[in-house]
């Protein structure tokens, strides 16, 4: 590796470490209400990054990823609510449920292309939404369930925050490894040129399937974390609006960059809190932003910054 590359590696490691440290010490000087917001941002960041595995990385739009979020959330929430199993089993069950749902939906979905694919997953998530809505006796229907018993240790916001930070950090790390791996390279190839990917030896269908299932699993974990944090679960988790917001996170933060969805989550939630204070027309702002970014800023925030950085480096003759 050249000296420049070695420097790049070191600097990106330092940045990551610095960011982690900042997140660790945040609760020390932020109010609880803001710590909650950051916790939510982290959860959404994970969900967005999981979606981005098949969205930005593989080039497939899914309008129903909230379905996986909800399956994880409800499985975990219901098991805990009715005291059927201990905490850890509930957690694992949630992950397994989301994974299984991903496997079933994925098996059908990957056989479809583009528009059909997007609609199929939408339909699948709406089925979950419907089941959650009508199964009033079990899921609390439209009202959802509140006051789900979680272990006492999580009753403190700070503790919950650290737990979430830890799980999200580990999950993001795994997702990062996947992205950088040969499997990740194959996914990029599939995004760029499906046909050529097949002709160089990639079993496109199988790889997309695996990516889809992984994506579903990690989205499910995000769902579980949400229930763990808020101690409630409701139908809105499976809503197509939710799915749309997930897509928007990726787009806003930059779907071609690993940290894009997480950055998107932060900016989005921040905008949500701030804009709603000044105007009731948040959907209008949101919609306009979506259109604007889709038309002019396809790389999102991270894409924009990367471009600036590249131009900066070019000007300094370092490329």
């Amino acid at each position: 590796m050249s000296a420049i590359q070695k420097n790049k590696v070191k600097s990106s490691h330092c940045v990551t470490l610095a960011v982690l440290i900042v997140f660790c010490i945040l609760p020390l000087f932020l109010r609880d209400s803001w710590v909650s917001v950051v916790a939510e941002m982290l959860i959404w960041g994970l969900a967005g990054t999981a979606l981005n595995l098949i969205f930005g990385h593989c080039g497939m739009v899914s309008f129903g990823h909230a379905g996986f979020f909800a399956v994880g959330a409800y499985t975990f929430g219901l098991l805990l609510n009715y005291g059927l199993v201990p905490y850890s089993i509930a957690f694992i069950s949630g992950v397994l449920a989301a994974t299984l749902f991903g496997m079933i939906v994925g098996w059908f979905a990957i056989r479809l292309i583009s528009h059909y694919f997007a609609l199929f997953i939408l339909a699948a998530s709406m089925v979950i939404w419907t089941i959650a809505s009508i199964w009033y006796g079990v899921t609390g229907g439209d009202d959802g369930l509140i006051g789900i018993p979680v272990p006492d240790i999580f009753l403190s916001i700070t503790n919950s925050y650290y737990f979430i930070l830890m799980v999200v950090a580990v999950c993001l790390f795994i997702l990062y490894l996947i992205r950088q791996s040969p499997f990740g390279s194959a996914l990029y190839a599939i995004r760029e040129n499906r046909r050529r990917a097949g002709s160089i030896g990639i079993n496109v269908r199988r790889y997309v399937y695996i990516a889809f299932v992984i994506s579903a699993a990690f989205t499910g974990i995000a769902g579980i974390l949400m229930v763990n944090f808020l101690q409630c679960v409701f139908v809105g988790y499976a809503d197509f609006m939710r799915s749309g917001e997930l897509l928007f996170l990726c787009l806003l933060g930059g779907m071609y960059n690993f940290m894009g969805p997480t950055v998107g989550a932060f900016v989005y939630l921040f905008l949500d809190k701030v804009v709603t204070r000044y105007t009731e027309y948040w959907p209008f702002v949101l919609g306009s932003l979506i259109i604007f970014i889709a038309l002019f800023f396809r790389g999102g925030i991270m894409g924009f910054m990367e471009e600036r950085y590249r131009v900066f480096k070019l000007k300094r003759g370092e490329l």
Partner: protein
Amino acid sequence: MSWDIILQQSVSGLTEGMVLFVAAAGITLVMGSLKVLNLAHGSMYIIGLYLCFAVCSQFVGIPAYFYIAIIAGTLGASIFGGLMEILIIRPVYKMGHIYQFLVTWGVIFVVMDLVKMVWGGTYHPITAPQYLTGRIIFFGLAMPKYNLLLIIFGLVVFVLLYLFINRTRFGLIIRGITVDREMMSLLGQDVSRSYTFVFMLGCALAGLAGASVGPITVAGPGMEMMVLLKSFIIMVIGGFGSIVGALIAAILLGLVDSFGILFIPRLALGFPFFLMLIVLSIRPWGLLGRPE
């Protein structure tokens, strides 16, 4: 189950089916020929609805006010659609479907609030003219007149659309674009303009559906999404681009909805989605569509 109830539910289901057909015809036409999935389709529906409501409240005294209102709703949705196509969809045709989806998705939110801004989110049911309302004796039962008229209306729209697509010159152009866009361009057709027109036609149909259903419906939050989803389902089941398929699927959906509420009220909510899932799994191109 008595004949009375069957008749009642059938009329109710057919009414819903016909209105949905008009809306779905729009989305399936656009999808079939332009290969564009307009997620804001439901938004065009509510634009039609609200414009009709606005014109009705303004011009109640004038004769034929109701028809003016419906035309206003249809035109309004159509023009909005035209602007949408030119300003934000044209730039993204060449860029892969993701951007189409995202851009039309954004429009949903924008329209959602625009409607709130202009009409304040309050909605009063539209009063249709006297001679269109009330009940009429139909097969021994008193049925709402307007609903029966809507059914006939839907059929008329179907016939007109079918003739338009299959018997007129412009319909030929639409069919040509569907099959081979490049060839049409080489043949001297201004394809961009044709695209805009077809898109406007699709939006007009959605607006027409929304406007015509005004007197018997109440606008509520999330309405555009329900219309969107139901139109999708009809489009998928009937086949992308197929008007006849849309009619059959819409009637099917309407009847399932109205009879479903009788038997299993809870599941009726989710049945359309199950149906869509099944059709997508077995025949992704729908009952009457063509495999690509």
